[in-house]
């Protein structure tokens, strides 16, 4: 999963195996519903999520900030190893999709494409474990323009008012106190000397 995140070309390279796994997952799910029903009785789903070292309730989107028309890869470790996951991207208008377990990792992976007409905003993408029934969500941010066409700021930035330039109030107060002590001491000594001379 991390690997996918770190390599921009990851999803493209994964297409073959992921599709195969997705197809296999669907076939297995269709052929053996009884097996999955049995498994769902045991708390296997949440445990698998926990052992994967991630919060069981997370749905990871790569990328999670896109422009309309972009493809998004979805990962979750919330479901069991062999569990098929139903993805729901209807919020952003991309319909439903299926997440299937990867060939050599516990995460389930799926993909959908954000429709070209999607409006900018934040959309909730939902995935539900077929067998375990857990529901996990993730936020997808759709931006107006791709990075290449984005609005750039102009001009200088007003990030200071000169507050650091004036006298330091603490230091000034300390200085005044020190001078007061000096004045008191000096007065005392002068007073002593005056009295001593007088006797």
């Amino acid at each position, binding site marked *: 999963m991390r690997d996918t995140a770190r390599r921009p070309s990851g999803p493209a390279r994964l297409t073959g195996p992921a599709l195969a796994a997705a197809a296999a997952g669907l076939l297995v799910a269709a052929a053996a519903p009884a097996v999955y029903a049995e498994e769902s009785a045991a708390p296997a789903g949440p445990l698998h999520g926990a052992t994967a070292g991630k919060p069981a309730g997370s749905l990871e989107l790569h990328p999670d900030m896109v422009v309309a028309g972009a493809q998004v890869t979805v990962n979750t470790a919330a479901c069991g190893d062999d569990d098929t996951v139903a993805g729901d991207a209807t919020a952003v208008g991309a319909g439903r999709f299926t997440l299937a377990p990867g060939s050599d990792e516990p995460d389930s992976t799926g993909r959908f494409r954000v429709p070209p007409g999607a409006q900018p905003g934040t959309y909730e993408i939902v995935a539900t474990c077929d067998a375990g029934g857990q529901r996990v969500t993730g936020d997808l941010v759709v*931006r107006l323009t791709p990075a290449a066409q984005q609005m750039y700021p102009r001009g200088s930035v*007003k990030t200071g008012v000169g507050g650091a330039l004036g006298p330091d109030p603490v230091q*000034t107060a300390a200085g005044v106190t020190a001078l007061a*002590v000096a004045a008191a001491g000096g007065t*005392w*000594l002068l007073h002593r000397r005056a009295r001593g001379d007088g006797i």
Partner: protein
Amino acid sequence: MRRTRRGSGRAGSPGDTVIGSVSVCALCCGLWLLVGGAATHAPPQPSAAQAHSASAEDGAGRGSGRPPGRAFALPPSPPDRIRIPAIGVDAPLTGLGLTGTGSLDVPPPGRANLAGWYEAGTTPGETGTAIVAGHVDNAEGPAVFYSLGALRKGGTVEVDRRDGTVAVFTVHAVEVYDARDFPDGKVYGAAGRPELRIITCGGDYSRTTGYRGNVVVYAHLTGSR
């Protein structure tokens, strides 16, 4: 009698000596504190040596080459925190937009240790130019990027991202610009590799118009973890 008293007064009252010493000491300290406290505390400004050099490093910013030390771009993920160990910066990041005139908005000045990033732009670590801005000072005194102008080439900037990764940038230039002659393209323009700009106020200060320019730190991605 008088002689005795005087003698004992000089030699036999260590209290007077102590009080005398303390008074002299306090006088000196007080003067030093007052003079120092009243002096201006202008934030440090970058020297000409920290400006862009004409090396390959500079051209690489436009995607022309593949310099050593360049790291693979990270997928987009919003930043949460910025750390600059060399100048003791460790601050959370808030999202920034644009003002009505198209300039970059700034974080609320009330919170001294808060920086911001340009939310509609590139996220730090992905290919392009990510922009971070923060105050050099506020009405109370120095703020998050007070020492930004003291940052030097080769310094490290770390950005914590929401996907759990830490983008590590290396500074390749620190420059100061007058606000009337601000190089928009150079500071905000697109880049062919993951770059970061850190902006704060700087330059001359005038009582009427405030700081007259900006200090800009240029950094590029050199690693992640």
